């Protein structure tokens, strides 16, 4: 049963991720990204990480992708063929990725199949577990990440903010 669900989620994730770059209409691309986010959340649920699943949907599907759509509609990019004839770039990226993939496949066949120990979820309270780990073991990386996000936020404000004089001179 687990295998079946994993297969379904993984398959849909792979297909929709491809569609995001393959579809020509940017709105459809954004929508297939939405479907992908949902299936990633589904994967989290099968791993008993319900908190991560909910946060995945709230943050990525609920906020970030809405802003993407917002921009796509504002610019009215109905059909843009510029980005669909870059075969050289695609080849440049894909060949190393393909080699890497082959190496990984070869490595996993060579390596002995090892059973992954099931992670202790602490009787369903995975939110508590995540909180405790985040504020003890991973406190430093957590603080660094929040600092980076804060810097990004301030940077965005500075970029967007114009002095009153500038705005007036530009009309």
């Amino acid at each position: 049963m687990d295998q079946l669900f994993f297969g379904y989620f993984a398959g849909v994730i792979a297909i929709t991720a491809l569609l995001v770059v393959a579809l020509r209409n940017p709105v459809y691309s954004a929508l297939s990204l939405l479907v992908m986010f949902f299936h990633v959340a589904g994967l989290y649920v099968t791993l008993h990480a319900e908190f991560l699943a909910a946060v995945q949907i709230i943050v990525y599907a609920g906020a970030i992708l809405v802003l993407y759509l917002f921009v796509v509609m504002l610019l009215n990019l109905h059909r843009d063929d510029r980005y669909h004839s870059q075969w050289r770039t695609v080849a440049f990226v894909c060949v190393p990725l393909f080699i890497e993939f082959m190496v990984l496949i070869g490595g996993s066949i060579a390596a002995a199949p090892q059973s992954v120990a099931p992670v202790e979820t602490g009787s369903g309270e995975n939110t508590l577990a995540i909180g405790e780990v985040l504020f003890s073991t991973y406190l430093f990386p957590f603080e660094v990440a929040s600092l980076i996000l804060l810097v990004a936020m301030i940077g965005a404000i500075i970029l967007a903010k114009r002095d009153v004089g500038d705005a007036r001179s530009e009309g």
Partner: protein
Amino acid sequence: MTELGLRLAVSLAQIAAVMGIVMLTVMILTLAERKVLGWMQDRMGPMEVGPYGILQPIADGLKLFFKEDIVPAGANKFLFTMAPILAMVPAMIGFAVIPFGPDLTIDVFGISVKPFVISDINIGILYILAFASIGAYGIILGGWASNSKYSLLGGLRSAAQVISYELNVGLAIVGVLIMAGSLSLVKITEAQAGGFWHWYVFAFPAPQIFAFVVYVISAVAETNRVPFDLPEAESELVAGFFTEYSGMRFAFFFIAEYANMVLVSCVAAAMFLGGWNAPYPGTILAQLGLEGFAWIEGVAWFTVKVYGFLFLFFWLRATLPRLRYDQLMKFGWKVMLPIALGNIVVTAIAMYIYNQFK
């Protein structure tokens, strides 16, 4: 396999019951809104269909059902069809985790069933927030797919508004979560038992009164109701994102808006006002020796609280003029957000000190 089948049957029955109740509430609301507005504006409201106009919702439903289904030329047909569904499904799906009554467990043919909540998942409130944020897609895509500038502008306004105020809804709830120590709506409600002074609006040591105000205002904004109905401002945008919609598709958007109102009212009642708990300790029916019927009182109190909220929605609509767009954004980011953040800090400190001395 039979157990699985039985569980499935029980869950489907519960879902059907809750859907039925929600749709019935939506029907009542469409009439109640017009009646309450009429009463506040000193007129009668709908009086034609049935005695005192009480069959008006059925007439409206039949009318919308038989209207011609128009897809505007140049509209994106696929998304034009998807948008109302994307608006409606998130509005209905959130009810799965709302506790409508006491947390009883009854045995049905050997499997235990909780009759008043479809699914008590441990991230209940996050689940509701997640699907509420998906509701914005229906509005944005509906606005875009219509190929009309009024619709597009309405959709874009709505996107900006929903994102801004969703944040405030999420942050207003955090205070309650700190006090309850759980994300499950069933547990949050149970923690508020024993009188109205245990409800999280008034509860010691950190009354969530500011969070409650922020939540109510943001909830009104998130459901696109007056005075925050800029996405569908008649005088500026005809009807906003659903300008081009007619017939059943329009009805879907309409039902979604009302179902969202019911949902945010249910969440407000469960998180801040004690859910199905009566404002006095215990229940009167239990005092009278009718222990088995105490759940009736719980459900009644929940209904009273939810309908009180819905009345507040109508009251606001009859009272307040619409905000300007820049006022809306300024109010959301510069007033509501700092209050919600401040509330989290104060609540966290108060709870820490309280736990030290307990």
